[in-house]
């Protein structure tokens, strides 16, 4: 009975502050509409500057087969390496291809020629992929040299392995399929952790918590009264994302059971609110709570496997990622929404989330003191 009034009080407080309410609802949804479009990692549009000292027909043909591949955009064509390097310096070109003098003549004389490629490697991944693409195009071109009227002798047939790449669950490599569930999870997590921790610390800062502390309300009741409203708001925002925005805007329809997602979500929200609660018990001012929440959120976000794979990290990094509830819930949403996995498939992640919910909440309740 007491709990009902407490929850009513919280809801009244939340609904009366129209600015905050609007932000809680709008900020996540607008971000969900915009951000997934930004997360396309496929490396294309590599800008290339060509330094051609030969200017022969074979050189021109090689360049056109590079640009025709669709990965490269010819940014600059000239015969001055310094000029090309200046463009690379300014990030206007990602790599420089230098074709030596007497390129065609050497080929016609049945000799091997060496091309020089300089790659801007500040972004290591992009550099190695770009370099690989270029090498593949050039080695394909090697095979077709005879088409250029160059005699290829020495006809040992080459053994060749063909690749048949298959992309399961997302044959057209649609990035939204991956990002939308992930970003939705991050947004709901932020609502839960921030709002919950700030709400309690605000009462501490204003002193109103003293008033609650002197009432006969038990501390578990008080905490429940704080958690339930934010739990409901989190579920609500997630539902709009999953049931309205994902299907209507991104054409994502869960392949697995929606009930299963909600089951995990319900427990996940408890775990997240537990973290918020824990933060609030360790801070006295909203400023402290915010800094702590910010730190946790950055950690959760960047270590969740949403942007970079957690498997690539060293063992201690993987251990941190393993303690990150966001990692597990993103995995669950991806498994269930995209692959239609069932309860048995997600059992490991599910048990970890349950365990975290229990640990964080117990810790927070033990640490919460009614006297200051």
């Amino acid at each position: 009975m007491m709990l009902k009034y407490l929850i009513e009080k919280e809801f009244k407080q939340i609904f009366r502050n129209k600015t905050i309410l609007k932000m809680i609802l709008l900020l996540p949804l607008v971000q969900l509409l915009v951000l997934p479009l930004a997360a396309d990692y496929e490396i294309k549009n590599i800008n290339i500057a060509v330094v051609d000292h030969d200017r022969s027909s074979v050189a021109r043909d090689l360049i056109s087969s590079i640009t025709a591949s669709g990965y490269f955009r010819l940014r600059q064509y000239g015969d001055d390496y310094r000029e090309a390097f200046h463009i690379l310096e300014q990030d206007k070109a990602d790599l420089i291809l230098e074709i030596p003098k007497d390129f065609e003549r050497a080929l016609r004389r049945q000799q091997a020629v060496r091309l020089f490629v300089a790659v801007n490697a500040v972004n290591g991944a992009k550099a190695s992929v770009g370099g690989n693409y270029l090498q593949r195009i050039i080695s394909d071109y090697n095979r077709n040299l005879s088409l250029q009227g160059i005699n290829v002798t020495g006809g040992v047939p080459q053994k060749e392995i063909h690749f048949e790449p298959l992309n399961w669950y997302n044959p057209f490599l649609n990035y939204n399929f991956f990002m939308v569930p992930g970003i939705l999870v991050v947004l709901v997590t932020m609502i839960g952790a921030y709002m919950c921790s700030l709400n309690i610390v605000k009462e501490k800062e204003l002193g109103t918590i003293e008033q609650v502390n002197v009432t006969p309300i038990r501390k578990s009741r008080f905490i429940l009264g704080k958690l339930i409203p934010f739990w409901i708001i989190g579920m609500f925002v997630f539902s709009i994302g999953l049931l309205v925005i994902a299907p209507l805007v991104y054409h994502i329809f869960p392949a697995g059971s929606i009930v299963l997602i909600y089951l995990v979500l319900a427990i996940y929200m408890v775990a997240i609110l537990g973290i918020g609660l824990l933060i609030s018990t360790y801070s006295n001012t909203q400023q402290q709570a915010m800094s702590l929440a910010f730190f946790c959120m950055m950690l959760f976000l960047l270590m969740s496997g949403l942007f970079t794979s957690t498997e690539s990290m060293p063992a201690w990094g993987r251990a941190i990622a393993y303690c990150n509830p966001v990692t597990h819930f993103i995995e669950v949403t991806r498994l269930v929404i995209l692959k239609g996995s069932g309860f048995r498939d997600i059992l490991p992640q599910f048990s970890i989330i349950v365990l975290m919910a229990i640990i964080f909440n117990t810790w927070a309740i033990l640490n919460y003191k009614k006297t200051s």
Partner: protein
Amino acid sequence: MKQLSVFIRKEFFHVFRDRKTLLLLFGMPLAQVLLFGFLLTNEIRNAKVLICDYAKDDASQRIIEKLKASRNFDVVQQKPSNAAIQEAFRKGSISLAIVLPQHLAYDLEHNHSAGVQIIADASDPNKASTLSSYATNTISAYQAEINMPVNGPRIDTEIRMIYNPELKGVYNYVPGVISLVLLLICVLMTSIAIVKEKESGTMEILLVSPLNPFLIIISKAVPYFVLSVVNLSCILLLSCTLLGMPMQGSLLLLYFESSLMILTCLSLGLLISNVTASQQAAMLISLMGMLLPTTLFSGFMFPLENMPMPLQLIANLVPSKWYYIIVKDVMIKGLGIRDVWKETLILAGMTTVLLLISVQTFKTRLAS
């Protein structure tokens, strides 16, 4: 002038007396830069790969050995079956499956051609395409080994990686994390510091003091400016010593640009504090509203040129995008002001506009 210095001292006291917050302010950015500098990488390592070896011959053995030797893959072998692949994907326990067909060696020897299936879990498209290309490259290397080198006309390539010969992820991520952390911390802290006075009612007292209201705001910003510069110095020191970031360009220039960036962020925080009334609202805007967009639009996570045009335009509004370019240019490439003047000008322009709007919206009387 004396009044101003008194106010600034008051603000410094505020910041230094709250030990817990101070510790967080210093510790957090350092911890984050260190942690993410060590951990974040675009390269995919130890990805679980299931190999379905129907061939079980010499060729398949050598391909598997090659895959095992690669640090990109963590090879899992099982009795080959289609159901096993599906099961593993549904559990999310593998990211890639490679199917080596029967008679692989025989086909290569006698037909000079064989097919290999590479099945990727494309629910994570980035990882799927990266892993497929790693696998293709590894197997192609085997193909090159079994082929005789051809004499005759041939084009070779010599690839040189400029600026980052070892392709370290640190070069990309440390500047990114620095600009991300600097932006969020500065914006968050200034906006909160001012709104806090509003919320607790002490702003009213400051506003009736004889000091010009703008000077009050300036005195609020000074401690955070100093703090941010000190913070930045620690971050730079750590990234150059522990994380192996190079410092090719002028340190002075980097400090100048960083101060500019900090100013931009402080004015953004100021603006937020003007339009909000409670710490909660200020925090919602500066954290929930800005964390994801700055992460995505700074350009260190996802290439900006892949984004749709409207988003590229939005990205131009994110200060950390420009600062990220400057940090890379100065620290890694060693460029001077002649090459980064455009970005500098943009940051300066942003600061001016933000400050002008803040002055316009600043209320010397609190709404009743």
